[in-house]
């Protein structure tokens, strides 16, 4: 049997006492594309960050070509011929392609000045070898996403590299760009590079990878040959058996004959969202499922006016509305709770009360001043209603836990009494206890007659919340499923993979 080029043995890592990786083994052979899969929080990124020296393992060894190596920082990783392709973090938009590729490693003239000519020549040669058509003198900021990625790869290969880690490399690429990237990866493979390929997309993995390793809850679950595995097995490995208690689904009652609150007709955004139609009824919770890049985020931003929209109609409570920006959407009765609530949803330095009344300041005014009595009452009401754990309404929000912050964001939008509430990844970054509470709050809101749209990459969460699930794949809404008809997470996994 062929010996592995890289093997990571017995790797463990904990953050603040919480185990993220539990004695994981992982190995890659020369000339192999090895997929690394697992749900959110399975430990994929942590394992790769240990390999690339961003984190150090608490326990375990890393061998390269049978030699034990120490990787304590990114420099060590580079010395051991390990490179990682970041989504967009390591390129500088204001420098040219050649300047980026050779940054900190530029050729020098005899008197120690930068020899840009030489760098440009080398870059030209490198790009030619890789059969990529990019002008070395072009500013990286002027390149399209696909070329951005290839520049990134070229940069990794410009220094001696044996092991290449790619993290969701196709997430922001079009289909054609993906094809170009894949032929590129095949070429690298034939040149003997070992490639670790992190992705959620099964079709891609089956197309490009030789072997696959699956992690779940920080543990190694399986390593299989891609030829001897099918989608069902992979999904089984990823999902496991035990369902999270926090995410138990309860069938809810709501009037099914009411007129829709929100109608989305033929929504189109370039190639990202293609003719999406759906309705949302009062008291209903609808989930949108899909992989990264499937168009779910773009759909929601187009509806809410925070992202581009090419065509399509939006009807709220039977009236067609024109939504060009977020204030239009709010006026129409929509509310969006963004994914990154710490940045987009809250003024962290302000008190609970100030955050809650921010969107409704105009209603809180008495003449020229803010009516404090009224504001306090509104704030106190929400703290009680949503069970926000805080000493009082004057406490600064950054002192509260993630779950309670999320509830304040909810309160903030509810204060304006919207008829449609859109939640983007509602429980990301909150602890288990708070997750359950948020799920309960969302259900209560639906019970009170609000229509709720949830997008989430965590399928258990979608399954726990939704009455109905819409599945998006490559910009289209390919499936609509009633929650009660979905028996297992596997079914939904199948659907979002586009099979």
């Amino acid at each position, binding site marked *: 049997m062929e010996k592995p080029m890289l093997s990571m043995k017995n790797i463990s890592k904990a953050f603040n006492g919480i185990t993220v990786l539990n004695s994981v083994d992982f190995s890659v052979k020369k000339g192999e594309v090895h997929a690394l899969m697992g749900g959110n929080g399975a430990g994929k990124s942590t394992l790769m960050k240990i390999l690339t020296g961003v984190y150090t393992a608490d326990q375990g060894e890393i061998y390269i070509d049978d030699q034990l190596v120490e990787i304590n920082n990114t420099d060590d990783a580079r010395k051991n011929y390990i490179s990682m392709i970041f989504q967009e973090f390591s*390129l500088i938009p204001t*420098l040219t392609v050649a300047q980026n590729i050779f940054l900190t490693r530029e050729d020098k003239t005899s008197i120690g000045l930068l020899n840009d000519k030489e760098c440009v020549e080398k870059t030209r040669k490198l790009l030619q070898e890789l059969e990529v058509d990019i002008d070395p003198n072009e500013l990286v*900021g002027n390149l399209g996403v696909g070329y951005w990625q290839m520049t990134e790869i070229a940069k990794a290969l410009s220094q001696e590299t044996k092991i290449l880690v790619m993290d969701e490399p196709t997430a922001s690429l079009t289909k054609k760009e993906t094809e170009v990237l894949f032929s590129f990866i095949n070429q690298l493979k034939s040149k003997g590079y070992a490639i670790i390929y992190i992705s959620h997309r099964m079709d891609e993995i089956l197309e490009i990878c030789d072997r696959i390793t699956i992690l779940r809850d920080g543990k190694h679950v399986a390593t299989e040959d891609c030829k001897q595995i099918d989608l069902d097995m992979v999904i089984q490995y990823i999902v496991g058996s035990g369902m999270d208690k926090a995410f138990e689904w309860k069938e809810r009652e709501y009037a099914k004959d009411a007129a829709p609150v929100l109608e989305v007709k033929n929504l189109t955004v370039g190639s990202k969202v293609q003719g999406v139609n759906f309705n949302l009824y009062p008291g209903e919770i609808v989930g949108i499922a899909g992989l990264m890049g499937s168009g779910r985020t773009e759909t929601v931003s187009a509806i809410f006016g925070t992202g581009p929209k090419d065509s399509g109609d939006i009807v709220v409570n039977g009236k067609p509305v024109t939504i060009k920006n977020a204030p239009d959407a709010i006026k129409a009765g929509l509310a969006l709770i963004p994914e990154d609530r710490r940045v987009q949803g809250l003024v962290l330095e302000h008190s609970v009360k100030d955050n809650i009344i921010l969107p409704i300041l105009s209603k809180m005014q008495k003449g020229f001043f803010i009516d404090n009595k009224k504001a306090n009452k509104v704030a106190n009401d929400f703290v009680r209603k949503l069970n926000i754990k805080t000493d009082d309404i004057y406490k600064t929000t950054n002192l509260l836990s993630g779950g309670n912050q999320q509830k304040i964001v909810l309160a903030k939008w509810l204060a304006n009494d919207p008829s449609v509430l859109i939640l983007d990844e509602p429980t990301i970054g909150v602890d288990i206890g708070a997750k359950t509470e948020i799920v309960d709050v969302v259900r209560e809101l639906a019970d009170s007659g609000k229509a709720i749209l949830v997008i989430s990459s965590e399928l258990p969460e979608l399954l726990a919340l939704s009455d109905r699930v819409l599945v998006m794949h490559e910009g289209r809404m390919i499936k609509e499923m009633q929650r009660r008809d979905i028996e297992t997470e596997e079914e939904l996994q199948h659907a979002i993979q586009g099979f």
Partner: protein
Amino acid sequence: MQSKDSNLNGTVALGSHTVSRKKKSFDWRDYIVYLAFIGVIIYFSVTLHDQGFVSTDNLLNIIRQTAMISLMGLAMTFVISTGEIDLSVGSIAALSSLTAALTIQAGFGMIGGVAIGLGTGLLVGLVNGLLVTKLAIPSFLVTLGTMGTVAGLAMWITDTAPVPIVDATFNFVFGSGDIGPIPILLVWTVLATIIAHFLLRKTSFGRQTLATGGNESAARFSGVKTQRIKLLVFLGSGFMAGFAGLLYAGRMHAGRFTFGEGDELSVIAAVILGGTSLFGGVGTVIGTVIGSLMIGTINNGLIIMGLDVSQQMMIKGLIIILAVAFGKKAIKR
């Protein structure tokens, strides 16, 4: 051969079809400062022809008046290219003129004076740099603080009294002298400009300065020691401000706490007018010098026109806002 050719064609075709690449095109906004500078010169040459605006004497005078701003602007170009700012340069120039003058007065000679004057600048630059990099305080606040502290220090050490310098060599070399028809301040300006230009365009330090400002985390990932780069640009800015202090002292034959007062605004304006992006990543040394000359020319023209200081300030402010608004690309980037 055949297959290789078709292969190449294939990738070229893929490239032009699959990815939308913005075309490189001429953008006049990149050259706004040069156009504006030429415009200003032409305007004053026509309207002030009879008042001697175009005389050699007056043009050399503009160079003399702008030399300090240009020199501080060169170093500031590096600071702003990293995405930082240094508001303390004017105060440093004042303090350095005094420490240099006091040293010379105390009998340590020209060399001593120069060393202490430059050392003063370096020291304040070091404090700025360490506070920004080690304590992670925004440079705007750090240098706002040192600007005040250093200005106060400059007033305090001589109780606001000027300190005369009688060392003729010092006064000649640092400001007052002419080599033939060429003012020594022009020599310093040209010399420093050449060095700064090569430093920014042709050395790793310059490249890493631009990288740090272009995307700091990306630069760090690529192995740039961004904290060190920042420390160095603040040291450089302090040093050049100290040098400008020496030039003020040499030109006026004295050290004085009012030298350099308000210079930080002219310096930053010159850098931004020149085309360096306030958000870092894009910097131009030549642009800075042109920006500085333009501000100097406007000042000079307005004085010849007979406008008083208040009117000069208003017009200068307006021109800066207009120029930056027209060159807005740098800000949107």
